[in-house]
């Protein structure tokens, strides 16, 4: 029966090509708008590290001075070097890492030095964030402590500088003039969003060169990204151990999300000690953000993207309403045909089923057309110069979603006309 209805649908769609084309175009436009914005949203709102995102936590302490203090306000966005190093030493969580972005002139052999983005990090950074190694190893906590002159390269830099991951191992690079040995090379890695540091763009690539934090400090590498200082005394060096400035991201990995309250209490105790010792001017005020919470707090998905998504959904709704109108018109033209089918014994249910199958066919074709259009739409997004242009692609879940959206839209658009068709009485139509 289904095959027969499919055949009928094919014939009927062919009989009114203009109307069919209009309906399909309307549906396809709605689907395309919806899928394009939904894909952008899906990519931007993605969980960058799904296996762990619920038990990786970002630490915030309220270390600022009293200026502008409001009880119950928000703690600093980043931590100071003194706090970071203390928490790291106390090692209260199974894993913890302190990190910041920086830059350095990097030289291979006698080549022209080249400005390179650097990430300062402590040893646990790599296992915590599942950074994949292609060759060699990352540095150890002991090397951290000793400010060892070792670095880890990212895949494109290893390829560019030494022709591959294996060749890069044990090579020496001059970083701001100081020799440092390559001990490891990462496999291609692009967590999206760039969750562990969102201070300068949430969709950028990770740095090209990773340097132990202590090494970076000893070599006086320049930091970048945001920093804020407080107090009345002029600050000449933000990175100094006791500078009243927050500029570091501090992350912990707990055994499970259930350990978060205990860790928060630990941070409270730490803050209270610092407050009593006179280091923190403000009373304890701490925050622990899981990965997704931290991304939401930083509004990593631009508000414009939310607006576009809302507009596209509303547009799809209007498109569905319109194609209801168009299909109603078509149904009426076919009253005679329906009358004949009814007179020959088709029940109302049969007629309804026939028209729903026709809608299904429309949905299928609309989906294909819509995907083609959204492919064009996404090409437009990528051609734009937003900072997320590079990472927006259509993936398998989105293809499935497109099919789902199309079918639901087409079926919704088909119900009213099909009901109307099922309501045609046999006698009246045959008489005329």
């Amino acid at each position: 029966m289904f095959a027969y209805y499919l055949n009928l649908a094919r014939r009927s769609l062919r009989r009114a090509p203009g109307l069919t084309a209009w309906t399909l175009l309307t549906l396809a436009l709605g689907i395309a708008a919806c899928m394009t914005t939904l894909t952008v949203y899906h990519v931007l709102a993605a969980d960058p590290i799904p296996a762990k995102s619920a038990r990786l936590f970002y630490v915030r302490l309220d270390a600022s001075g009293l200026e502008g203090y409001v009880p119950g306000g928000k703690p600093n966005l980043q931590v100071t070097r003194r706090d970071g190093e203390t928490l790291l030493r106390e090692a209260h969580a199974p894993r913890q890492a302190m990190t910041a972005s920086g830059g350095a002139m990097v030289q291979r052999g006698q080549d022209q030095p080249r400005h390179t983005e650097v990430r300062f990090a402590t040893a646990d950074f790599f296992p915590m964030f599942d950074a994949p190694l292609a060759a060699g190893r990352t540095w150890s906590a002991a090397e951290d402590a000793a400010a060892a002159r070792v670095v880890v390269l990212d895949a494109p830099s290893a390829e560019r500088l030494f022709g591959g991951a294996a060749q890069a191992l044990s090579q020496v690079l001059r970083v701001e003039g100081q020799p440092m040995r390559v001990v490891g090379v990462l496999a291609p890695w692009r967590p999206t969003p760039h969750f562990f540091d969102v201070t300068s763009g949430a969709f950028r690539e990770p740095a090209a060169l990773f340097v132990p934090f202590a090494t970076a400090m000893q070599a006086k590498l320049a930091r970048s990204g945001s920093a804020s200082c407080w107090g009345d005394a002029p600050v000449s060096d933000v990175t100094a151990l006791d500078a009243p400035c927050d500029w570091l991201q501090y992350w912990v990995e707990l055994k499970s999300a259930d350990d978060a309250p205990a860790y928060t209490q630990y941070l409270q105790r730490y803050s209270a000690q610092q407050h009593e010792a006179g280091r923190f001017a403000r009373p304890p005020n701490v925050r622990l953000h899981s990965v997704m919470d931290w991304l939401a707090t930083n509004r990593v998905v631009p508000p414009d993207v939310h607006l576009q998504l809302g507009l596209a959904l509303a547009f799809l709704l209007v498109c569905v309403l319109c194609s209801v109108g168009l299909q109603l018109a078509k149904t009426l033209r076919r009253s005679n045909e329906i009358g004949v089918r009814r007179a020959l014994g088709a029940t109302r249910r049969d007629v309804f089923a026939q028209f729903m199958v026709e809608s299904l066919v429309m949905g299928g074709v609309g989906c294909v057309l819509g995907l083609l259009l959204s492919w064009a739409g996404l090409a437009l997004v990528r051609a734009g110069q937003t900072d997320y242009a590079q990472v927006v692609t259509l993936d398998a879940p989105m293809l499935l979603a497109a099919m789902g959206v199309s079918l639901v839209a087409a079926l919704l658009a088909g119900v009213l006309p099909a009901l109307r068709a099922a309501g045609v009485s046999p006698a009246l139509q045959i008489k005329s």
Partner: protein
Amino acid sequence: MSQFTPVLTALRRHRGAALLIVCNVALCAAIVCNALHLAGLRLATMLAPSGWPEDTVLVLNVRAEDEPAQTQGATTQRDLTLLAALPGVRAAAIGNVVPWGDSKFRSSVTANDSPPTQPGVITPVAMQYRASAGFIETMDLRLVAGRDFTATERIRQRDLDYGEPGASPPAAILNAELARALFPHGSAVGQTVRTDGAHAIPVVGVVDGLRDPGPDPTPMAVLLPVTPDYGSGSYLLRIAPAQREAVAQAAVAALRAAEPRRSVGTPQLLAERRREAERDDRVMAAVFAGVVAALLAVTACGIVGLASFWVQQRTRMIGIRRALGATQADVRRYFQLENALLTGAGALLGLAGAQALSLVLKSHWEVPALPWPYLPLGALVLMLLGQAAVLAPARRAAGVAPMTALRS
């Protein structure tokens, strides 16, 4: 008016389809009003005057590649003399940040005699411009009180950041907004201010301007006579718009020749930087306009479809009316009136929807409330759209011959 009754009677028999059109129009009106408003907001930012001489200031960024920091100060001075002497350049200066630039430098500024920082007291945060002599002339700032910095009131940024502890800017010029905020009851000139840990900086002048443009703007600003080195600042050249290309080429060539161990960026007018900074606004304005166009097209399409459906369905009725003496114009008017009633009802419902949508936008995205003129505008657009869409089906209805209708 006598046509009202039959129209209403007919509509009552097609409640489903009538409701469909009303919903369609209402939804469309609600979105169109808000999308137009959102597009208008973006356009307004793009068209708003910034107070900066956008078309006459050329920005040039130079990065130190290999030149040691010790000689950069002298190079900067030599560059400025060279640039000012170029034909077509009326004034030249170097500043730490430029409007529509990648970075902003904000710091809190307080009157010197105000009590030390207190909990709960929020001190004014101002943009901090550090610039060489000639900045006021280059940026076309108007002194409203006091004077420009003198030649002796000047310090190098390097000396301030890495020099003797306690080094402090010798003077400050406030913009009118900051002067008003700090000294509401008298002149700011002659007073002293505190910023960035430096105390008792005398205020020598007040200028009109220096308002930070763009999203999250900071209207207050302070100008300090602190000369940055070229590696941490941007050269600013005041030119005549017609000479833009010639000056840009000459400036790049002169800077390359003066010190080869550095990279010279492409000069840009402030206006060009503004265009780049407002790219997202432009894209979103286009998106909103596109959404409005697509919505109207789709809605028109739906109206044409349903109107055609009704014309076809009522062929018999039209025939009878024609046979009983209705003219073609009567029949056409009948469908036009029906459409006006439906789109009118839809538009009214849509206005309520537009208000509701505006409230949602306001609470979630901090969009300002929908100004009322958008409501009649949206309604009018949809009424006109409805009339335009129904024209062809109505003409077709008017063309139905009395006899054919009766025969079928």
